[in-house]
């Protein structure tokens, strides 16, 4: 392999990586929630409905897509590190035993952004980017 090949390989790898980060799902929150990045464990607690309120005491209100939505499946796996069926099990156990709640289900990305923007304490996710003055993208570490 000569130098040109290496450059080409490197460039294509970089391009691949860049396109991957472009399609990575992003966790979004309402502007009224705390600013700091959150840990993966905290994100899991939010989406399993076990974190009840934010540090500033606003109630956590979770919005998700239906179970079989591609963005939901991807977000659950790559951002939360859970399998979609695990989330469903946790929610079902909570709502059918009275020990907890299930998130609000929204149908489209548009609706997701509007709901999170309109709900103080709201949290959700989008396929990529969300341009709305009431929404902030939160880094998951």
């Amino acid at each position: 392999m000569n130098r040109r090949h290496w450059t080409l390989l490197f460039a294509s790898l970089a391009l691949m990586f860049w396109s991957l980060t472009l399609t990575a799902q992003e966790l979004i929150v309402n502007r009224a929630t705390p600013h700091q990045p959150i840990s993966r464990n905290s994100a899991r607690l939010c989406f399993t409905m076990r974190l009840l309120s934010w540090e500033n005491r606003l109630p956590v209100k979770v919005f998700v897509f239906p179970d079989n939505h591609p963005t939901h499946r991807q977000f659950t796996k790559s951002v939360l590190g859970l399998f979609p069926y695990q989330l469903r099990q946790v929610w079902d156990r909570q709502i059918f035993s009275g020990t907890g709640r299930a998130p609000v289900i929204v149908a489209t990305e548009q609706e997701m952004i509007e709901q999170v923007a309109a709900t103080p304490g709201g949290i959700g996710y989008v396929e990529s980017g969300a341009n709305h003055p009431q929404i902030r993208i939160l880094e998951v570490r």
Partner: protein
Amino acid sequence: MHRLLVAFFLMLGGFDAWAEDSFWDGLQVHGFASQAVIKTSDNRFFGDSPDTSFAFTEIGINASLPVSPQILLAGQLLSRRAGDLYDGAPALDYGLADLTFASSVEQRWGVRLGRIKNPLGLYNETRDVPFTHPGIFLPQVVYFDKIRNQLLSTDGLMLYGEWRGDQGAISFTAGGGQSVVDENAKWTYLPLSYRFEGEFKQKDPAALFSLWYATPNERFKFGLSGMALELQLHPGPGSPLNAGTVELFYGIASLQYNAEDWTLSAEYVYEPIEWRNILFPYTKATVESYYLQGTYRLRPELEALLRYEAYANPDDRDGTKTSAITGGLIPPFNTFSKIWTTGLRWDINQQWMMRAEYQRHHGTFILSARENPDFSELQEDWNLFAIQAAFRF
């Protein structure tokens, strides 16, 4: 006590902040309905199954309302028809107030008051909700449907706590109260005295606990849970029976591993029982049972099930002793059950689910005497086939 007071006032504070929204904004209503068709080669299970039974119907509706982030009110009405065991009369399945004293990323603790589903094993809390467990029927040697109410729920209080760290989460519940026992207990623990009048009730408050560990991604879960209960017979007028008691402890160890395409579950039950001053073939017995269960997701909406379960009395594995004591009235094979189950689940969409299941039984321990009062008609080896349709919202 000081801390409790502080927590209480903090909750009131939360209530104020919340009250700006409409009180009913957070109301969530969910429900489900299911219908099964059951056919067995012999022996009655959930109705006239040898002639095909439709008598397995479950309908539930629940609502939950967060009064504040720290107070959740929740209740569920359940109508359950299960052969001769349950007639479908609606009952309060649970109705509780959940008060969270402390909640953060690291921990949460609080108390539930009211009618609470017993947190026993992997499935007891949602045992009647078809979507929440593999198979149309739960493993009968562990979650006995013939005496379902012994484990079902408690009118009382339950403390709960959870600690979370990088290594996983530890959670517990502890509490007690009045166990919601029904007629089926009498048929199971006093199978030779059901002809006489009398009520079979809980004596002292039942005690419950559970302890769980789960890895942060919940791939692996391990739990120990249990319940101590004492039942007393109140003989009716003219009954020749004594006001004897049945004392028991139900302990269950649970293990589950979740991978992307498959889940492995295993549970083991240890249940010592003591009969005092009461008509029964023996005065002491220990239930020992377990199951191993694998589910495989062929596609996200298609799940295959394979399960083996077994129950035997360790002191009388082949049932000959029990049979001899009763002069052959109880056949030996009524003292054990070994069951193979295979099934397929299809989640058609978010609302609808279909299931089919085949079971191969050796022994009749899991059958209720209420549905099979004539022991001489029982068959040792039998088959079961069932299909189920379920809806949820």
